[in-house]
């Protein structure tokens, strides 16, 4: 059997491939979000599950319709629209009405992604685009938070404030941070606080992120720079006036910081490609987040910080290129 058929592949090297595909990468990201989703459903019950399902189906459906209308192959199987759906849901309050969730899904896919040319071409994180559009357009629905009511506790969802929101209100009214807020950090870490579906459990998010580190889908640069700069800047303010400014630990475990630093700010498409660029991106996100939280109009600044840094990504990529092997630093 030494005959060779006409069907020989002919191409230039390399002739082997790692076997990694975009769909596999996306699937891994979806798996990594399972713990966070599970904790959210545990704390917020079926309403959170409903938001999750609506957001995923809304994103998949919108992407399919867009691609059909444009006469393009439908690529919802690659998993990227599903991720946008999950991330959008994690950025919504668990009590979001169904129309708000679906509207968010359409905004994320149409305005956040497809108008730019689909996967790989969008400058901004689609889920965050949707979140911010909703936050500005429907401030009441987007900031109606409920206290967690763990499954089986018999509690109903009760409207309450997020720790960050409570702090901001207190500081605006009294100029002082309420003491009881600072004491709850361990509970916040586990997820026992009011907030968006995905903001609640830092622990569950970190478990998922650990899996992504293991799969080498996440690199440490953006999360470390983001979290590190939040700690440094918020720590500075806290040292100056601990009665007014919350501690770095409070900053870390409340709001969307962990979700933002590990999942939203690490969206590959909308962040720099070089290690130094990623570090600068992360630092920018961290500083903007703290400034918005402490001095901005909104209690939470993670979304805005990431979107602003998304806008800076092309610039960062242009000016912070890696030093090519064999080229002396500073000699271009």
């Amino acid at each position, binding site marked *: *059997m*030494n*005959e*060779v*058929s006409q*069907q*020989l*592949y*002919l*191409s*230039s*090297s*390399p*002739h*082997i*491939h*790692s076997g*990694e*595909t*975009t769909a*596999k*990468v996306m699937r891994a990201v979806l798996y990594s979000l399972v713990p966070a989703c599970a904790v959210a459903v545990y704390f917020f019950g079926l309403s959170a599950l409903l938001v999750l399902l609506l957001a995923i189906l809304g994103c998949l459906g919108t992407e399919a319709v867009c691609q059909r209308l444009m006469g393009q192959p439908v690529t919802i199987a*690659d998993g*990227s629209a599903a991720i946008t759906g999950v991330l959008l849901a994690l950025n919504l309050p668990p009590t979001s009405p169904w129309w708000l969730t679906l509207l968010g899904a359409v905004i994320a896919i149409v305005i956040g992604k497809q108008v730019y040319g*689909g*996967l*790989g*071409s969008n400058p901004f994180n689609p889920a965050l685009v949707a979140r911010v559009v909703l936050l500005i357009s429907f401030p009441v629905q987007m900031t109606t938070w409920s206290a967690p009511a763990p499954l089986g506790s018999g509690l109903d969802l009760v409207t309450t404030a997020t720790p960050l929101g409570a702090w901001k209100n207190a500081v605006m009214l009294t100029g002082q941070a309420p003491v009881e807020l600072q004491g709850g950090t361990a509970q916040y870490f586990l997820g026992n606080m009011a907030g968006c579906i995905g903001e609640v459990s830092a622990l569950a998010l970190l478990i998922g992120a650990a899996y992504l580190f293991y799969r080498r*889908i996440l*690199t440490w640069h953006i999360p470390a720079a983001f979290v590190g700069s939040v700690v440094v800047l918020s720590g500075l303010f806290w040292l100056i006036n601990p009665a007014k400014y919350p501690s770095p630990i409070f900053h870390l475990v409340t709001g969307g910081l962990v979700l933002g630093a590990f999942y939203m700010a690490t969206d*590959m*498409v*909308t*962040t720099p*490609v*070089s*290690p130094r660029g*990623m570090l600068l991106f992360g630092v920018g996100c961290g500083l903007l987040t703290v400034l918005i939280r402490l001095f901005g109009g909104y209690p939470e600044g993670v979304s805005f910080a990431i979107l602003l840094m998304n806008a800076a990504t092309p610039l960062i*990529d242009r000016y912070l*290129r*890696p*030093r*090519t*092997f*064999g*080229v*002396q630093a500073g000699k271009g």
Partner: protein
Amino acid sequence: MCAAHNRLADMKRKTFAGGIHPPDNKQWSAHLAIEDCPLPAELIVPLAQHIGAPSVPCVEVGQQVLKGQVVGSAKGFVSVPVHAPTSGEVLAVEKRPHPWGMALPAVVIRPDGEDRWSPELQPADPGELSPEQIVEKVRQAGVVGMGGAAFPAHVKMSPPPEKPIKTLIFNGVECEPYLTADHRMMLEEPERILQGVALLQYVLGVERVVIGIEANKPDAIALISEMCAGTPVEVISLEVKYPQGAEKQLINAVTGREVPSGGLPMDIGVAVHNVSTAAAVADAVVHGRPLIERVCTVTGPAIREPKNLRIRIGTLLSHLVDVCGGLAEEPGKIILGGPMMGFAQLGFDVPATRGTSGLLLLRHEDVDPQPEGPCIRCARCVQACPMNLLPTTIAAYARRSLSAEAAEYRAMDCIECGSCSYVCPSSIPLVQVIRFGKAAILAKKRKE
């Protein structure tokens, strides 16, 4: 536990930044002793086998030639002569299919089966030879780099006086998956290699001599280290990572220095030779024997019996397949060299050359190309690039024929190792597109 421990030990080994970890697939042939490949019915000896000017034929059709006799003479300094791999009759001097993908001039020889050496080739006592005489013998023997690039060895042995060589590195890395030719050479013929090492050390008058071997060849490391004990030759175990054997990356791992962009190793006082090239240098100088044979790994899932074969230059690939028990399955791709940087062939009717370190036969399922998707900017190519380039950016510019921009992003520094294409989850043919971009940059430069 043991694997984890090895991994830990590996992390401390010398290496470069970036790179990838493809499965090494050396288990098919790493344990197999080198076998002499039987002489084929016909040898097709290409006159262009090296980087530089092709040789000029100096025999006529019908002429009887002896083993080791010159059949093509060198043209210019960066060129080497080509020799008859055995004794026999010249059947033709004409263009024949060549591994580079075109028909190129070759001397076709029908072996007479006697394998008689030319009487002109005489052994010499290297102790009585001057460095210049040694270099001349190496040139006459047609020794070229045997790692694949086939750059004439005598050129690397004659650095200009203003660029003295201080460190001499021998490349026993063999980082290409599947290939085991250098590994077997180090295990079975370390004396020849070390003889060549000593000769090159003498010629270049270097201070430091290093043999770099990837840590996946512990037997070779142990043997060579033992044989080098008490000599100034250092044996360094290098991390298993592709492209550890690329010249610039090997130099970086061993010396910590970087060959300047656009420069040569001699610019930082380094010369690198393959371990098999060292053995060829020893043959040339000590025995007066030219480079007419080499060890070639015939392997891959589509061949029945993988082997490490000592083959005559000019042996057709079809003969190698026969000697290895034929095909186990219909091949999807025929590759000369390794899977990362080898050359895909149109068929088995091309000859092995001095640079043929392996014949790799992959099945259809091994090479089934994935459809290309959009770049998701995952930056894996950036992390993998051993030259610290931005492959996806360069490729995007090259695709749009923006060669000035591609050049600005340092496309010309790409060593074409293929790590970027290997890791790309969107199966974008990054290095292939970058090659196209480099060609466009060079064409533009020539025009200007």
